[in-house]
């Protein structure tokens, strides 16, 4: 019940924010803030209430914390089925945290059509939460598409100079890959229908379908392409730099922090458990794509002169680790994946917030126009340095744990690819420190009056600092929440486990 409320509150909050603009011009952002506070309370209630769980559906094992199942389109056996386990819980927590960050960074940046902006923002978050909760494949697709449209509006209405191109590119990439996934879903359901005589889109029922090997490969590919376009992985990544650069700060925070994670979540939850043998066959190719993403994107990041574009490419690079880790499919690698998801969400969001703050002050994103900020913006510069270091994987911060666990887990499966991927430990400092040097050190070029971080920005960024330090120094809590779900996934897809 609380799960459906999680989504519903965001949607209702979105509508309230839109309509509240008529009463007062600044009302929408407060409405958005209140909505997110309610969400947090709901999530805490869900988490603490799971010890007193009443009825969990019989076929669900103990790793699932909550279940909500209502009929929707009985003709095709489509149900409104939501379920929550440790993995989903963590990702929804990240969603809400980054929702706060997005609202905070858009507080003064958005001046026109505020209501519609926060409507789109909250609807995006609703779509993302829905993806993390859905276990009916049709519902998954529904929420998947629900994420895209508000983000399209966010980019195309409040974005920067090249926003139309970036928004349409983002939409077409995601939509076409989503249609491939829809086709795969439909074929899977039809195969199941032929075997059991019943139409069902339910994830738990479809896991037991016997699929002939060659068909399974194509179906897995359909899902894989949809999720790797979202992840994104080279060569499907080219929408990301444009979309991230042209989006407003709040949009970038959500895009980099959460929406990319839906691709990773899809790989974890759907691609491998639904098609274990096909995924096992495909694993070497997938891991190679991961390695190439990591290194290629790191190189591209170094080549950029636009700070947001640089950060965008670093996101691609970090997400390459996900592919490597997921297709290794052992507990170490998967735990690394979960930590990377959370840590990257936090660090990427922080970096985009800082880039947005800089752009608000300087009205430029070109690093050639920046330099010497350490002298005039001490606090912001310190935070920039911290998150740049987090991004390159310094021990003590969250990203390191994730990358380390992934490399450790992947090493057992494929030594060559892991060794090549480890080269990023050289390339990541190259781009991170390059960014730091260009913006913070050197001569102060821009003589306009620059204000250091105002309290709102500093508080938001400090929250993120705390989060990433906590992840880096004691990831145990997070790993404990996710472990049961991960272990069960490995067990169920025994064909993949080494």
């Amino acid at each position, binding site marked *: 019940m609380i799960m459906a409320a999680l989504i519903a509150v965001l949607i209702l909050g979105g509508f309230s924010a839109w309509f509240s603009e008529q009463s007062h011009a600044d009302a929408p952002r407060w409405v958005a803030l209140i909505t997110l506070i309610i969400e947090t309370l709901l999530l805490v209630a869900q988490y603490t209430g799971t010890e007193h769980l009443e009825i969990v559906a019989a076929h669900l094992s103990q790793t699932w914390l909550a279940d909500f199942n209502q009929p929707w389109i009985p003709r095709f056996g489509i149900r409104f089925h939501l379920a929550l386990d440790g993995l989903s819980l963590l990702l929804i927590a990240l969603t809400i945290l980054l929702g706060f960050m997005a609202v905070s960074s858009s507080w003064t940046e958005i001046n026109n059509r505020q209501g519609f902006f926060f409507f789109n923002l909250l609807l995006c978050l609703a779509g993302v939460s829905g993806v993390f909760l859905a276990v009916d494949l049709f519902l998954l697709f529904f929420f998947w598409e629900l994420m895209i449209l508000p983000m399209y509006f966010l980019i195309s209405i409040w974005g920067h100079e090249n926003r139309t191109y970036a928004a349409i590119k983002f939409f077409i990439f995601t939509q076409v890959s989503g249609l491939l996934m829809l086709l795969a879903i439909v074929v899977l359901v039809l195969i199941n229908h032929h075997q059991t005589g019943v139409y069902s889109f339910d994830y738990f029922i479809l896991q037991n379908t016997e699929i002939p090997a060659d068909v399974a490969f194509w179906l897995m590919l359909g899902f894989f392409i949809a999720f790797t376009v979202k992840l994104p992985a080279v060569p499907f990544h*080219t929408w990301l730099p444009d979309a991230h650069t042209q989006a407003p700060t709040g949009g970038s925070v959500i895009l980099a922090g959460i929406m990319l994670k839906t691709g990773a979540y899809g790989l974890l939850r759907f691609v491998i458990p639904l098609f274990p043998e096909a995924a096992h066959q495909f694993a070497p190719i997938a891991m190679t794509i991961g390695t190439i993403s990591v290194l290629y994107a790191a190189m*591209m990041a170094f*080549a950029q002169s636009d700070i947001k574009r640089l950060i965008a490419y670093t996101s691609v690079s970090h997400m390459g680790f996900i592919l490597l880790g997921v297709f290794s499919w052992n507990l170490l690698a998967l735990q690394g994946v979960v930590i990377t998801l959370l840590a990257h969400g936090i660090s990427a969001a922080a970096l985009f917030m800082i880039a947005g703050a800089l752009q608000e002050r300087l009205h430029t994103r070109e690093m050639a126009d920046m330099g010497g900020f350490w002298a005039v913006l001490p606090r912001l510069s310190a935070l920039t340095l911290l998150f740049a270091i987090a991004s390159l994987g310094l021990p003590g911060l969250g990203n390191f744990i994730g990358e380390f666990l992934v490399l450790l887990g992947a090493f057992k499966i494929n030594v060559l690819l892991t060794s090549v991927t480890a080269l990023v430990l050289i390339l990541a400092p190259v781009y991170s420190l390059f960014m730091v040097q260009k913006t913070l050190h050197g001569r102060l070029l821009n003589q306009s009056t620059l204000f250091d971080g105002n309290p709102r920005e500093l508080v938001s960024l400090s929250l993120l600092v705390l989060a990433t330090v906590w992840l880096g120094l004691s990831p145990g809590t997070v790993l404990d929440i996710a472990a049961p779900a991960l272990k069960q996934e490995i067990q169920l897809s025994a064909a993949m486990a080494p």
Partner: protein
Amino acid sequence: MNISLLLLAVLALFGGLLQIPLSSVFPVLLNSQPENAFNAVALITIAAPFLGLLIAVLFYLSGTFSAQRFASDGWIKSIRQFLLSGWAMDALYNGLLQRPFKALCKRNKNDVLDGLYLGSAWLSRSLHHLSSAAQTGQVRWYASSMALGTAVIIAIGLLS
């Protein structure tokens, strides 16, 4: 001050003759060669400082060779430069790793992989212009293409 220097000088010259009882620290000897073996290595090790002393005497004491002329020789200058720059390790890294990497990155700044998608956009645009050319607005063209289309369809139907 002088006394300590004098003491150090005496020790430096004759301290090697002292026997340090190391057998408790390194009990097992691998190559048990007689301690006083006199081989080529020992010869070179002893001869080298005297050779250096000889060269110094020739250059600076007796003036047989001119140090200035020696230092201003082209070859010697480049060797000196090479040795000073840490055996040119930096230059090696620069040429082998840094420059190619930076050049590659700069060349690819606009992402060659994007060309795939820009190409498909270009293809769609060209196909659009191609098919728009058929919309001439003339009824005779429309009617004749209908007739031609029907003929083609009948042909396909009969041939397949």
